[in-house]
């Protein structure tokens, strides 16, 4: 025991002196080994992945390796330049570059590259053998996204199948929805009171799915207001939304056979800034004394300001959004709320168009599949069967 201690001590002393006289060479760490370079899978073709086995001096007790530098060259004997650095403990690096030819950092695809990995300590380093050649190329299908692909194809087939069933005249049952039944009453009330209806499409752009769902509902409601000869006001916060809303309302008036009653100036643009828009809509509610307010689409923090002001004005309010954080405020402050998915379903409900109802059925079928997967998945997980989870795991 004593002997080993003495030996260790003398080794330390020797190391110490060597260190003083030859600071560089003798502190060189062991080099990284088994360096491999290959094309990065599932990418656009401007990247190569380098992997290696950690240096023998990279570890909790030795700790003298602090980082790895990754070097690249066009030829195994040519000049190697540093491409990047990762901290100790890492054994992969993605050498990535730009895809634009004019970019300084352009990464040439389909060209041979050679790699070296350098293990670095604070004052020394050692290099691995050269790996390569490797070429970068782009893939035509992202394998990690296979579950999404399967989902896309299945869901598309389901929607198209139900729609074709609807085309063939199959009748579908859908359960009643409180918010939808309230729409007719709300329009009737405005007519009786002789006051206008306010329709807010939210802050979404014309391309937001919730806004598009809301356009369809607006179209149905415009048709009904035209039949009742009630004024409908649609202030917008996006110019494209305004243009579309004008077309939609006009179409509703055409459907009702009253194109003469359509007034473009009632569908107007205010401003695209959230709270300035709200300030103006608040004013409209109180000054026009709207009898019924619809808030359907994308809503953010302004939801509660609108709903509370509308309630001060004594309007009947029907709301709906897929913006999950705002649903609680609509539920608390408006008379009827279409929660999340119900907003999308509403267009099918209001129009009773068989095609739209068919799509709704496909949605329900998909939901059933999801519910079964949830139940089976949880059971599988309870018995430590990991394969089920893999079916839903998407690699980006």
């Amino acid at each position, binding site marked *: 025991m004593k002997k080993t201690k003495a030996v260790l001590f003398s080794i330390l002393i020797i190391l110490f002196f060597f260190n003083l006289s030859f600071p560089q060479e003798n502190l060189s760490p062991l080099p990284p080994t088994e360096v491999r370079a290959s094309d990065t899978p599932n990418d656009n073709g401007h990247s190569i992945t380098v992997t290696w086995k950690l240096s023998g001096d990279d570890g909790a007790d030795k700790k003298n390796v602090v*980082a790895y530098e990754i070097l690249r060259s066009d030829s195994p004997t040519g000049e190697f330049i540093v491409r*990047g*650095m*990762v*901290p100790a403990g*890492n054994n992969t690096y993605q050498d990535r570059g730009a895809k634009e030819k004019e970019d300084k950092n352009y990464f040439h695809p389909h060209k041979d590259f050679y790699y070296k990995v350098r293990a670095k300590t604070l004052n020394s380093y050692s290099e691995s053998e050269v790996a390569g050649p490797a070429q970068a190329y782009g893939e035509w299908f992202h394998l990690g996204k296979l579950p999404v692909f399967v989902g896309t194809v299945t869901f598309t087939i389901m929607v198209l199948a139900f729609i074709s069933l609807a085309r063939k005249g199959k009748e579908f049952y859908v359960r009643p929805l409180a918010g939808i039944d309230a729409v007719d009453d709300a329009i009737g009330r405005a007519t009786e009171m002789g006051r206008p209806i306010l329709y807010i499409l939210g802050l979404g752009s014309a391309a937001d799915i919730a806004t598009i769902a809301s356009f369809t509902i607006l179209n149905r409601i415009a048709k009904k207001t035209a039949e009742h000869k009630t004024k409908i006001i649609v202030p917008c916060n996006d110019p494209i939304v305004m243009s579309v809303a004008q077309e939609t309302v006009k179409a509703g008036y055409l459907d009702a056979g009253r194109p003469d009653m359509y007034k473009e100036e009632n569908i107007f643009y205010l401003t695209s800034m959230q709270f300035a828009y709200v300030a103006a809509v608040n004013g409209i509610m109180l000054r026009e004394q709207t009898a019924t307010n619809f808030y359907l689409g994308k809503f953010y923090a302004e939801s509660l300001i609108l709903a*509370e002001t509308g309630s*001060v004005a004594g309007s009947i309010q029907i709301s709906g959004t897929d913006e999950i*954080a705002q649903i609680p405020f609509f539920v608390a402050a408006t008379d009827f709320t279409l929660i999340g998915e119900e907003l999308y379903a509403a267009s099918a409900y209001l129009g009773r168009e068989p095609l739209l109802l068919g799509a709704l059925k496909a949605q329900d079928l998909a939901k059933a599949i999801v519910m079964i997967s949830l139940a089976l998945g949880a059971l599988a997980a309870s018995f430590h069967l990991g394969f089920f989870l893999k079916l839903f795991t998407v690699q980006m």
Partner: protein
Amino acid sequence: MNFLEKLLALDRRIIFLFIAIAVALPLFFTVKLHIEVTPVVRNLHNALEALPPGSKVLVSLDYDPGSMPELQPMAESFFRYCFMRDLKIIIIGLWPNGPIQANSALEVILNEPDIKKKNPKYGMDYVNLGYTAGNEVVIERMGSDIPVTFPKDYSGNKTEDIPLMKGVKNFNNIDFVYNLSAGYPGTVEWVLFGVDPYKIKLGAGNTAVQAPQIYPYLNSGQLVGLLGGMKGGAEFEIATGHPAKAVKFMFSQSVSHALICFFILIGNFAYFATRKKKGA
């Protein structure tokens, strides 16, 4: 209409008036509220305590005036802490307004008597590198070269010439990153593009609305600690032993929360009482 019925149909404006008073009045008082420091804030504080004096801390302010009430006290308390502990501050912003917010926080802190004694110098103890466009790409570029990503500081000095920036090449030379975030780009991007590839140590302060989305990163250890909303800011001030704005504001929070609860209770009391009467 008797009193209870009036209470049931209480004019909103009375509630508004009470809320205004409940928020404004406590601002005039300094009350030692008992605020417990939760583990997520404690962890952040411990991680900072472990840094030796002279460590370089990168502060990324990613918010605009809209989130000032929640995040500005966090910025101030953090700067104060760094100056007291002699940690070197490097400020950047992924939002255009971030560096402006930093300057106004610094103005407050540098005028505090304790800090004045320490007399921190620009360029030696702290530096503001300003804003660079590019969102998460900025973080990626900083991973390879900070002076190239931020070639000049906020006032136009060359980054290379600033004494504090000597030897700061990339994240390897940064000991801690602190991010104040109100959305995109923010803490999520710092985790995905900073922590994951470069293994930086990251602590963050978020708005209360944003905080729940950040929680998963705490559980997975990608984030050292988190200040959530004004309460998190107050806890940090308590943890650092220097109660300031957020603690003071928390008094307003408590009073206004209590007031809302009280209103809900009397509303229900009135509802029950009138219903009983009708039943009788």
